[in-house]
Every structure is written in C-alpha cells, then in structure tokens.
C-alpha cells in the first residue's frame, strides 16, 4: 500500500511543535513535571502543555478543544488544509480524529459548578462538547472541513487507528485528502482512573527499566495530512506502508500474557507492507512503563525481530498521552526517516532482566528506511503503523 504523508505536526509537553520536539529529543530534555494539574494532589509526574491554559474558545470551550486548536496552529497544517480545500472543495476532504477523553475535562468542570437545582449552568450547556465525537466536531469547524468526519475512541490505540480508516477512505476514492489527528488532555478522570488501577508512578517513568514503577500521564495533539500518491503535492517523500488492527480477546485492562493481539497487529502491518521484520530500522514501542506492558511487548519484539532492531519508548519525554499516543509516537517514528536520529529510551538505566532487545537510553544516528509504531489500548485494542521513505525510482516502499 502507498498513502502519502504530505504534512504533519505534533504538540506535547516535549515541544509545542515538531521543530521543538526534535530539539527536545536531540537534547534529551523531558517535558515531565511534578503533578500540578488544578484539582489533583496525586503524587505523580505529568506531561502538561501549559500553553493550553489561556486559550478561550467560547461555546467550544474545553481543555481538549483548546489543545486541538493549539496543535492546528503549529507549522503549516492550516495552510496545507486551506490549499487542499481550495483545490478539491471542503466536501471532498475527510477528517478522522482519535481521542479517549474527548472533552470529558469539560464535563468534570461542569459538575463542580452545577446550579442550586443540580443542573448544568449556562456556560456549560454545550451539546457539541459533552460527547465522544467532540474532537472531530471541533476540528471540522475550526478548519472548515465539510466532508465525512469521524472520531475513533478505542482508548490508547485511537489515534493510530485513524491512519487505517483514512487509508480505506482514500483508497475508495470518496475523498481526496484526509486530515487525521489525535488529541487527549490531562483531566481528573484519567489521573484518578489510572491511579485506581495502581498504574501511576510517583517518579518520572522509566520504560523497560528493571525498576520501573508505572506510568506518567500526559497530553498531546498531533495531525497528519494523508493523500493518494498520484495527487500528493509534497517533497516529503514519506508514506504509510502498512497498518495492523487486532484484539487481545483477553481482558479490559490487562494485556494478553503472551501478547497475542499485539503480535497479530505487528505481523498484519508487515504483511500489508510486504516487508520482512529485518527491514524495520526502528520501532517506537508502546512502552508505557507499566510492569506488564513492557515485559510482554519486549518479549514479543525479541521473538518477532532480529536482535539488531533498534527500539525505544519515548514516553519519558511527554508521558503516556493515551488517545493521542498513537499519532504522537507514530509521528516520532516517521520523523526518524527525516532526521536520521533514533530517539533513545530516556530514563532507562537497567533493562528489565527478562529482556534482551536493542534498546538504550542514548539517541543513535542511523539512516533508516522503514519504521514501526505500536499502540495498545484498554479493551485489548491494538494497532501497529509502518512508515517508509519513498524510493522515487521505484515509486513504492524502498
């Protein structure tokens, strides 16, 4: 398969845009801080995007929409979209957003300010905000997309799956370009929800470390513009070369002990791309820093890939951004094709004793042609993405 990525941007605690993120990665500067989210005294570290705090959106107000808007203001995403709308018409542009919290942050706030009859006060009467498709409703409004729009809510795989849906829409010919995105914000539901599952770390997370203590939560927005190769107007020469989607069929909040569903999503993506495991130059692991995920995912990588395959989890830069993690980390992997810098697994000191994979704290320089990104979510929902450089001579995967 061959779907072109003609533009992309990322906003997280590790950088308000992709340029700032590159600098953070290069310098190994983490965006994590001690929890200072308003209303929560939980003892943990978070990846908060402070630029969001002052954004006002009127009837669209929510922290999630504010972060979605901040993300759309970065780089050239808005210019790219207005050019495509002019070229194809707004009805021929699709929108697929991924999120797990949608705008639940706003509903949480509304419940702290109910009126004396226990009802929503006027400023919180926002039907377009208090619902699971709020991200696609808001982004369609903000960018002026009038074609098909959908929000995918499959927990932490949400914004990886947006690439699969966009591919199907483009291949069918119903649209000429698709804006895919992911946005999730820190809120009490996720901080105290993950705390109830005893998954939150009191210290900065250390994915794949023998002494990892759990996850740090973060927030992020990410976007990519996808097109069919024959119409793509870009010199980025980057393509989505495969995806895999699967289910664990095991448990709502524990991964399958043998990583069965994760294995399926990785092998599906490889099959779709026609690539051998040895062709993959870098894997951005889901790597939440939970005891269970990292061990199971690491053992699976050991089983499926050669020992030389470089891997890392980048969650120590911005935390686990949940429904935005799929696109945030997919774009970090994609960016390796451009920069030639493989991010290390920051904060890793001693690799889990049960694992033997090529993962280290330091960044590495390498010329890479194909990269993979894994995202696994509650409900046993898995998605793997494969990105490749375009070989102009062969017009396909290198």
């Amino acid at each position, binding site marked *: 398969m061959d779907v072109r990525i003609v533009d992309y941007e990322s906003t997280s605690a590790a950088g308000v845009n992709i340029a700032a993120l590159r600098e953070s990665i290069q310098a190994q500067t983490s965006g994590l801080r001690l929890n200072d989210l308003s209303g929560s005294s939980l003892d943990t570290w978070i990846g908060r995007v402070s630029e969001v705090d002052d954004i006002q959106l009127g009837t669209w107000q929510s922290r999630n929409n504010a972060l979605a808007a901040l993300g759309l203001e970065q780089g050239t995403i808005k210019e790219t979209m207005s050019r495509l709308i002019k070229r194809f018409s707004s*009805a021929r542009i699709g929108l697929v957003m991924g999120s797990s919290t949608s705008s639940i942050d706003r509903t949480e706030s509304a419940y702290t300010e109910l009126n004396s009859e226990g009802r*929503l006060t006027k400023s919180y009467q926002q039907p377009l905000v208090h619902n*699971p*498709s709020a991200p696609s409703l808001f982004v369609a409004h903000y960018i002026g997309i009038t074609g098909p729009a959908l929000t995918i809510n*499959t927990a932490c795989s949400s914004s990886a799956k947006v690439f699969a849906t966009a591919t199907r829409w483009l291949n069918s010919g*119903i649209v000429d370009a698709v804006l895919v995105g992911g946005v999730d914000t820190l809120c009490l539901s996720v901080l*105290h929800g993950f705390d109830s599952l005893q998954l939150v770390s009191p210290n900065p997370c250390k994915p794949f470390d023998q002494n990892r203590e759990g996850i740090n939560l973060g927030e992020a927005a990410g976007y990519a513009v996808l097109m069919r190769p024959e119409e793509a107007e870009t010199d980025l020469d980057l393509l989505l070369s495969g995806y895999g*989607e*699967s289910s664990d069929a095991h448990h709502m909040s524990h991964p399958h002990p043998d990583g069965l569903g994760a294995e399926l999503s990785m092998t599906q993506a490889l099959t779709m791309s026609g690539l051998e495991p040895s062709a993959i130059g870098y894997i951005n692991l889901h790597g939440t820093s939970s005891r269970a995920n990292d061990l199971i995912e690491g053992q699976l990588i050991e089983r499926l890939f050669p020992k030389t395959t470089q891997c890392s989890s980048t969650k120590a830069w911005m935390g686990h951004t949940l429904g935005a993690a799929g696109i945030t980390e997919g774009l970090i992997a994609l960016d390796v094709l451009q920069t030639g810098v493989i991010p290390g697994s920051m904060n890793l000191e001693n690799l889990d004793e049960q694992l033997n994979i090529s993962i280290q704290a330091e960044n590495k320089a390498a010329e890479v042609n194909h990269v993979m990104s894994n995202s696994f979510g509650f409900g046993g929902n898995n998605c793997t993405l494969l990105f490749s450089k375009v070989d102009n001579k062969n017009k396909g995967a290198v």
Partner: protein
Amino acid sequence: MSSNSFSCHVIGLGAWGDYFDSWDSLAELLKSNDAVPEKVSGPKPQIIPANERRRAPLPVRLAVESSWQASQMAQIDPKALSCVFVSGFGDTQLTDYMCKVLASESKALSPTKFHNSVHNAAAGYWTISTGCEQSANSVAGFNNSVSVTLLEGMLQCIEENKPILLTFFDAPVSQILTDIMGPGDSFSCSLVIVPEGFSNKPDDAKKITATLEYISCEWPALNTRSDVLEASYKSNPSSRILPLLELLTNESNSGAIRLPLSEQTTLSVLVD
C-alpha cells in the same frame, strides 16, 4: 480510485430496545399498527461470562446482545468478524458516576467502573466474550453516528474484503446531561455485512448500495406508525438506523433513502 458507489450484502440482523428483544420483533413493530407494545426488560447476553455480565453496564449489554443475534443469523463465527461499534452519547451513566466522584473530596474511582468507562467497552466485552482477535473499532459521530459508521463499515468490508459486524447502540441519558442531550432510550441494532463476492451468503440476502453525494440533506421521516419508535428516532442517535431498517423490511423488497453524512455530504442508500 473507484466511483462513489459501493455495495455490500446484509446477512445478519440483531436488535434490542425498550419494546423489542430481537430483529424479528423490531421488524414487526416497524410494520405494526398496534398502539402500545409491551416493554421488555434486560438484556442479559449469555455470551458474556456470568462474572463479567454482572459488571457489564447497560450499553455494553445492549450492544453485545444485538451483536450476538446478528452473528447467529449470519451463521458466522464471531471470531471471524471484524467489528465497528458506534454510540453517539457514550455511557452517560458512567460519565455521571465519574464526574460526581471527581467533584467530591475523595476522588476514589472504582477501577472496574473506570475501565468500563472507555468508549470501546462494548467492543472490548464483545471480543473478550467471543474470543475474537479481529480488528475492533469504536467510533462516534454525534447526530451522524449512524451514517458515518455505515460508510466506515462498508468501506472496511470492501477495501479489506471481509465480513464486518456493525453495531449501533445508545442507552438512556443520565439525568444531568438530559438538558443538552435529551432523554434517549435503550436501542441497539446490529448488521453483519459481507462483500459482494462473499461465498456463503444466503440467496435472499439483501444488497445495500451506498452512494456518496456532495450535497447536504435532512434526516428522512419514518413511515412507521409506532409511536415508541418515532420517539426513539427523535431522541437516540443510534435509532437513526431505523430508515434503513424500514427499507430492509419493505415488502416491495427495494427502495432508497438519503441520510445526512456531514455538513455537505449525503449517503444515499439503495436496497434491492
């Protein structure tokens, strides 16, 4: 690049709501002139293991029950079905629970209720209960939840050439949110669709052809005389599948409807 029309066959249907407990009883209600049907209680889908079933919220039980019925009618093992679950509201009872706890001093959430609060809880319970390792999607599209899910499901069926389970479900809205969402009701409907060339489809399987038009339209009026379905159609985002279901029960065995898909697109659906 192909045209803007695409076709699938419907080989399984399932349904559960306040006044029906199967596809047959919903189809009958759509055609009936009887004024007041009997209310049903439940559902208690047996496919969910008893331990899990006790903890499964109402929207999950609605979705799993109608999904199971549709897969049975289609005679396809659920393990072989990729699925797309859609709910326009999400589980507002759990939203209400979470927001109330989080507005209190303790903020101590039940871990089970937290993991059940994800929008893909229904897809999760379904794949866990049936041992399905296929791709499972969970989506939302506000008032266009039905049309955009039909589009997504049909394109997945055709592009990936495999049978797909589509489940449209929503449950009554928690009290505080009724001011902005309306009351809602219990409604779930599932379709199993297969690509045109699918080998094991029954001879009388109805074909649905969807065409994307780049203009806006309004939701069509229902033909049914059932007041309870009419009320559901107005207050439940998932009940917007009813115009298509009317076509599927139509005695002339054919017909067409137009469903709003987005601000400037329409999904025209032909059944024959």
